[in-house]
């Protein structure tokens, strides 16, 4: 499916990752998940993602570092930072394309993802 957009979800909460992936798949995205913040390099190697949903608090990595890496490697990739910390969210507002504060509604994810399809 060369025309299917690719999205990576980096989220340590199992429920939320399911919800995000489900929502994105419904929207027509191929999705990949990194739960602990250790898989994303291989995921990024496999294909250029159209969208990355990025949680900041991860067991093995810092969301902000991951954001830097994605920005350096795939400047076109849309990164949406999802966090509960409003203050951190503010600090990343410049670098990230979108900042979503938890709890994140499906609608707001779809709103981010919709322009990236095809």
């Amino acid at each position, binding site marked *: 499916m060369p025309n299917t957009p690719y999205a990576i979800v980096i989220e340590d*909460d199992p429920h939320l990752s399911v919800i995000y992936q489900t929502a994105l798949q419904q929207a027509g995205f191929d999705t990949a998940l990194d739960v602990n913040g250790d898989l994303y390099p291989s995921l990024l190697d496999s294909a250029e993602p159209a969208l990355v949903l990025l949680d900041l608090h991860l067991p093995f990595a810092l969301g902000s570092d991951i954001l830097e890496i994605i920005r350096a490697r795939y400047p076109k990739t849309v990164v949406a930072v999802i966090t509960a910390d409003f203050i951190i969210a503010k600090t990343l507002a410049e670098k990230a394309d979108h900042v979503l504060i*938890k709890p994140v*509604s499906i609608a707001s994810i779809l709103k981010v993802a919709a322009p990236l399809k095809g």
Partner: protein
Amino acid sequence: MVFEYTPYILPLIAAALITIVIMGYAWLHRSTNGATALAFIAASITLWLLGYALEVAGSNLETKYFWGAAQYIGIASAPYFWMIFGYQYSGRERKSSRTFVLATAVIPIITILLAFTTRWHGLIWNEYYIARQGDFISLGVGHGPWFWVHFAYSYLSLLIGSILLGRLLLRRRQELYRGQAISLLITVLTPWIGNALYLTGNSPIPNLDLTPFAFTITAVALAWAVFGFRLVDISPLAREQVIDSMQDGMVVLNRRGHLVDINPAAERMLGVTALMALGKEAGEIFAPWPHLLERFRGVTEINEEIVVGRGNAQLHYLLRISTLLDPQQQPAGRVLMIHPLGVNPSPGLAPVETPQRVAVSPLPRKASEPIPAPLSPSFWGRLTSFFRVPLKLDLPIPEGANPSWYRTRERIFTVITRLAAVIGSVSILTVIPAMSTVVDPLLPFGIILFLLFVLGLARNIQYEIRIGVFLFLIYGFGFIEALNYGYSVECFIFFMSFVVTSAVMTSRRGAITTLLVAFVTLGTFATLIGSQSFIPLVTKAYNDIPAPATVQAGITSLVVFAAGMSAVVAAITILLENVQTAWQKESQAVNLLQQERDLLDQRVTERTHELQSAEIKYRTLVEQLPVAVYRDEADESGTNSYMSPQIETLLGYPQSEWERDPALWEKLLHPDDRATILETIGETLRQGTAVAEYRLLAQDGRTVWVRDEATLVRDENGKPLYVQGVLEDITARRQADEQLRKLSQVVEQSGSSIVITNVNGIIEYVNPHFTKASGYTFEEAVGQRPNIIKSGRQSLEFYQEMWQTISAGQTWRGVFHNQRKDGTLFWESATITPVHSPDGVLTHYVAIEDDITHEKEMEEALQQAYQNQSVLNSLLNIALENLTLDAMLERALDIILTIPWLPTRPQGGIFLVERQPGILALKAQRNLDGALLTMCALVPFGHCLCGRAAANARIEFADCVDERHENQYEGIQPHGHYNVPILFRDEVLGVLVLYLDVGRVREPREVTFLEAIGNTLADMIRDKQAEEALAQARDQALEASRFKSQLLSRVSHELRTPLGGILGYAELLQTEIFGPLTTAQNDALGNVIESTHYLTGLVNDLLDEAQAEAGALALYPEVFEPTALLNKIETALTVLANKKGLTFNAHIAPEVPEKLYGDVHRLQQIIVNLVGNAVKFTIQGEVCVTLIRPTPAQWAIEVRDTGAGIPSTEQQTIFEPFRQVSNSISRENRGSGLGLAIVKHLIELMGGRIALESEIGQGSVFTVYLPITNAPGV
């Protein structure tokens, strides 16, 4: 006519030459009175001489007769001209009027006419014949009757002329004129004496007229008169012209005080005539002026101003008296010169007249000047200058000779030699060839002429050599004559000429030498011829009898010659010497006279100049003096008639103003001074003079003080003419006086002591305050030294330094510790200033002293207070340090124990009341005995000194250890105590204990200070205790707050994640990806989602509030557009409002800027919150948001609703967290209760404020005021 040479003509021709010279000279000087007559005399004598010479030389009767008659032109006219000369020379010219001259000339003219016609009538000569005596052939005559008439008339004329000259001789004391007269008398009388001898037959040779010989003397005497006495240069008459034309009076008194000369000016001045006055005693002449007579009697030298007459007739003269000296330098009399100075020569205030014009007669040519030779290029001029030889001024003068005489003699000699040379030349060409002589004369004559020319022309040859050659020439004539003829007349004449010429032309020694030479030569010839051993050559040739015939006869002749010539030499020598002396004196006298005149002229010129400059000076003075001069009428009105121009400077009114208004002065009088002025006018009129000082009003309104010095001027009769006076501006002086008076008053009334000493430090003045301050009276202080008030408490060096400063002329400032008379001490601040006189000499010292005892005490007290304060300050400084209470107490104790003036030992401690009330616990100590540390660790109130101090709340003092010191121990040292309670208001916090030496006295000063220390310590302790408690509480509070915030933050974070799960799954379900839903399921999912949203809002609010309280809330301001903000809100909230059936309106006022700077997210939160509330609590109506700009610096958000309103009691509390309007919580409008609190926090964080207006039932208006700020860098 036939002539024959005869040696007799030689002296005649020589004399004639001299008289011709004199004639010419006199004629050229005919402007001099008498000179014309003298020229005629000389002419007459010349004719006589030449006539006689030709008569003698005539070889036949006819020739002799003719020349004999021709002589009468001279013979008859000479006495006549003599007489005329006498008249003219003696100044009686008026008597020699034309008529007189003509009348007296009748007889001489008749005589001349008769002489030429005598052969026909014999009235002069009744017979004439050739008379031969030896080789002398002359005309013998018999005298006719007219001859005797002529004879008598001639002698009469001679007599008259001689008498006139003789009178002159007697009258004139001046040697010059006397010399002139004497020489003239000799000139004239000598030939007549000779003539008389001839006529009476007493001539040594019969028929030999002695007149020619006499004429030799005449010629010489005339030459003396002309050249020696300057006969034709200055005559008595010329002198009179000078003296008489003088404006100055001249009176000459002889030694006996008789008046011997007076000039016309003096005649006028003295009111006498010369005739009346001459010969009279001076006392007689000056009788009308006895004071002058008395004043100047016996005065020989004076030069001063005298006043003659009085009143308007007063005349001023300059009188000069000088002594007249005779040739022997003995006083011969006095000369009085009187120079008129005119009327009122001294300048006064009288109207200025034109200066005295003193006539100055032109200066006469100085008589002593040599007559300059006229530089005439004409032949005649050259000829005259050839004979009128100028004086040879560069002639070397032998030492001891009279230069004038020496030069004159050389001049005469030159003239004679030139004349002789010329005449000899003429003779050799004309006369001599006609003569039959034995010897061919040409060669010797040629040699002689050559010699004469050399002698006459070569003036550069030494005079002595020239005269020597000349004398040798004459001697040669004589010698040749003797050689040829032996003793002959010519021989004697030559030798006589030889000696006389020598006597006249050389010195006395020369005369004697020539006399001896002549004597020896003649003697030799006498011996040789008389003894027949030598026969003169010519005599031998003609075989005549040689003369002298015998030695005897020769010796006789020789003796006669010698005696005669000795007499002549002596006479000439004496005459010459006298003449020289006289000449010298006369020259001196003339010079003196001239000097007098010059001096007088100079004096006159000077005086005139002085008068002129005095006049100018006076004018300048009057016009430039800083005073005004005025003249008023001599009456009470004081009407002004003149005012000098300076008045303008004085009062500002120009001179013209005063001329216009004669009563101006009166108008300008200061009203207060009017009485003074009237008195002054009266005084002036009564006493003639008065001085007043009063005020006048100047044009510019100034008051000018003037000094008015008025003088009444009266005429001769004492009638008042006018008042004249001087106005002087003395405003400055008055002010200075006033100033001085004030200063003096200041000194007298000064509150400072003022002492004036002289340079030696002796008091000359003290002011009253000094007497008050020191206790010494003025009389006691003056004459003493200022050390009478010296206390002796200041060092010697201190006083030495002071004296060094002031004696060096510098001002000294310092403080004295002085002692009053009663022994009390006082402090004085002093300034001592040296006073210098205007010429810089140190004369006085002035000391100004102020009592500063009080200040000194104050200063000490202040010093004390300052020290105390600094101790307290250092204590307080410790309190500021971050120390524990115990450390602070120890430091404080150290400071207290080291206060220098407090008599404590370095021993003490501080007790505090701590856990147990009523017990003092030792908290800090220094150097306390070991026993005490346990014994006094805890001291109950009331026990021992410390306990009592605490119990009584009062300082306890002990000077020793006694029964009051209850805590005693083994080895206790005797000491005293100050036990100071540490009191905070009335509460005893503790006690400070200080150790003292035994025997100290309780000092109130110390007690006061210790109380202050106690209080300070109390403050410090209390502060420290409070500070410690506060710090503890704050730390706890901060910890709690931090914990709460962390908790909230964590809780909110932890809540969000599950909330995300709930929301996510609910929404996924709703999308039915997990399968289709029933309606009921769908509704349930809606409720889940709604609850989740609510919970999310609650979590957000909680987090915000927590952050706000923890101070962690941050703003992220940016530039935004209010319009966009409002649109966004409107979109979101319109739906919400419409849901409740409400209207939502949003407006923006035009004044609100298009762009603002702020945290747009938070602003939106604020508005949503407020609008949300409004919608929540409004049932119907509308909710309205308006952006306004209430002030230029603010913008505001106004949220208005039509809800129920908020009760005023709750309006204050609704902004507190978790507060809601009571009873408002319902199902519809539940909330966290944090909204408004967060809003308020945010607004305050933004630097704004929120206001609420509300009434029950009337709705509410929330207004958020925010400052308009710019983005940084904008």
